[in-house]
């Protein structure tokens, strides 16, 4: 071996060691550089971030992004159609919390454990468990969203209520008082149209009553009359039949309840609202008559404050994706706390993704809370960190869409007068038995 050669080997060894040492730190950037020139297709149910924001990602990595904004329902159909046809659809797309069991079973999405360790990032992601099934990470949380209670404090105040209710009993009697005093004739918004928003409302009321609808083995927990699920359904139906809920809500979907009822002061409270509606609906003068009146309150429960169920959207990589490595880089970039905070409005409107609720991780949430630029932001961060939990702790069952269909069609039928609470409960439980078999 010549001296020159040994020196070269030595230099190589040093470079290799330094490289190995720095691999973790600069791994993303290094691998990203090798992906320069790749173009990925991203299909998401959110409008694209500003061009300048995506340009930053391209500058960092050389990866170009074609962002397609597709409405949520349409997107789910496209994902299923492409997967069934075994064809390419996108490199990165939506993984809704409710689809996690389905995607785990069908293998339509790549597990992300290789790129993100669920155990090591769990403390940073409050709603990560919604995307994990049997230890497999099917998607990364793209945002944090949760079901929250909103009240029109001006209406409560006019009724002489100065302390916000902390129990469901007090909440109900306060609403009855508001109706009785004629401040708002039908003060509670529940969207009774046969759609997903009705199912999630039931889950949240069930959680407020201290329960959940399915066990960890997906057995129904709502068939007994004394169960929280049964009582929650009875409470919702009773609220409609006694006039607490506007009659028109039989045909209203969730967003109609927020935009038509609550934003126009036709109701005084939404028990199961979406985090972010304060900033995107109620405090927007062009679409709201209650701009400074609505606030988030901790959700009232049976004996005290209740849990707030997680309702997040995730992003994942379809099994037929063409550019997996570039897709992973993109997801990592999306997850950076500074970007998450910016998408939610921490750095002003220039970097916002329209309708984006809250950052997916603790770092982003803290930056958002510190910015003070999002209405009710600090209250929401508190709810996320202390009261949020998954709808299904073991992950959504694979047959969740069929289950949800049974939930909302039967609850709608009860309110429309075509069946009773008991028969609806029985029909939903029968559907579960059929789906499990």
């Amino acid at each position: 071996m010549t001296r020159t050669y040994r020196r070269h080997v030595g230099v190589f060894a040093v470079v290799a060691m330094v490289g190995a040492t720095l691999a973790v730190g600069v791994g993303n950037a290094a691998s990203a550089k090798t992906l320069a020139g790749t173009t990925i297709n991203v299909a998401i149910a959110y409008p694209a971030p500003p061009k300048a924001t995506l340009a930053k990602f391209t500058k960092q990595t050389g990866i170009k992004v074609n962002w397609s904004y597709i409405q949520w329902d349409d997107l789910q159909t496209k994902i299923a159609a492409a997967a069934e046809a075994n064809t390419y659809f996108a490199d990165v797309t939506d993984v809704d919390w409710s689809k996690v069991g389905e995607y785990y079973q069908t293998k339509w999405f790549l597990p992300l454990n290789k790129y993100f360790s669920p155990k090591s990032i769990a403390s940073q992601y409050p709603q990560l468990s919604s995307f994990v099934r049997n230890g497999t990470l099917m998607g990364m949380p793209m945002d944090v969203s949760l079901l929250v209670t909103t009240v029109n404090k001006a209406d409560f105040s006019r009724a002489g209520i100065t302390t916000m209710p902390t129990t469901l009993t007090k909440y109900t009697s306060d609403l009855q008082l508001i109706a009785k005093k004629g401040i708002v004739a039908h003060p509670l918004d529940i969207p009774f149209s046969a759609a997903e928003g009705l199912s999630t409302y039931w889950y949240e009321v069930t959680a407020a009553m201290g329960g959940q609808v399915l066990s960890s083995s997906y057995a129904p927990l709502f068939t007994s009359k004394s169960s929280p699920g049964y009582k929650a359904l009875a409470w919702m139906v009773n609220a409609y039949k006694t006039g607490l809920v506007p009659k028109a809500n039989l045909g209203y979907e969730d967003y109609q309840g927020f935009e038509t009822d609550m934003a126009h002061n036709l109701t005084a409270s939404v028990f199961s609202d979406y985090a972010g509606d304060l900033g995107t609906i109620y405090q927007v003068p062009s679409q709201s008559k209650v701009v400074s009146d609505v606030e988030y309150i901790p959700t009232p429960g049976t004996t005290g404050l209740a849990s707030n169920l997680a309702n997040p959207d995730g992003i994942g990589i379809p099994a037929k994706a063409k550019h997996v490595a570039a897709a992973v880089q993109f997801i990592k970039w999306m997850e950076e706390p500074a970007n998450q905070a910016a998408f939610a409005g921490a750095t002003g409107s220039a970097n916002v993704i329209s309708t984006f609720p809250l950052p997916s991780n603790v770092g982003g949430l803290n930056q958002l809370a510190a910015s003070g630029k999002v209405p009710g932001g600090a209250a929401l961060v508190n709810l996320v960190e202390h009261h949020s939990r998954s709808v299904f702790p073991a992950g959504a069952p694979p047959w969740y869409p069929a289950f949800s269909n049974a939930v909302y069609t039967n609850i709608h039928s009860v309110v429309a007068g075509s069946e009773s609470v008991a028969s609806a409960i029985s029909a939903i439980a029968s559907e579960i038995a059929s789906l499990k078999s």
Partner: protein
Amino acid sequence: MVAPLVVFIGALAIYPTVLTVIEAFFHNDPLTPPNHFVGLGNFRGIFSNPQVVSAFENTGWYVLFGVALTVAFGTSIAILLQKKFRGRGIVLAIMILPWALPGVVEGVIWSWIYDPTFGLLNSLLKSLHFLSQYQIFVGTRQLESIFLISLVQVWQITPLAALLILASLQSIPAELYEAARVDGAGWWQVIRKVTLPLIRPGLAIATVEALVLSINIFDQVYVLNAGATTASSVMNTTYFITFQNLNFGQGYALSLLTTVVTVALSVGALKVLYRKVDF
């Protein structure tokens, strides 16, 4: 010369149809693999599903309301537009607008009209003292819901039906009307004995158009009725079974059945209504 057309039709019509026919006899559910032949199992499955049975009944009503109203309104409008008058071109252009709108947009527009809180229909009926208080029109009563949703589709497809019938009307020689009047025929007799028999080709095509679109009604139901069984159509149920429940086998079977019913009813309607007309 015809090769591109053959490829186009083959790829977009024949291949999917053949695939649908084959897959309708296979278990195809990604949640419970593998796919396997089940004979008529998918058909038995869909008919044992009360939601499908209810959807077929609802769709029967959609067809009845849709075809009757579209043909009646289409014929009436065509007869009114047959005579030339000032601004006829503008009326024709405005009339065709609903046809140009997507079904979802129409559903949203009519959801404002039917809205139980702010809706135009409630406001109108109350101001005319037909109602004492605002009503929920869509969602409670089956026939009322189906009729009102059907009306939205009729509003969309009537312009095309009117144009088809108008084209037939304009091909009738003026001498035939003159001869009828010379023979002492009144307005109604002219319509019944001259006009209607001679526009049968246009009527037949307009009827088949209304029939096919009514059987396949989807957007308006999706927007106005969501997932409720009250007024769900076969197409909506097919969508839920296929893309929500992921039971593609039953989805294929339901699609095949709907195709067969559509073709059979269309051929039947053509046989009854269509007559070749020579002047």
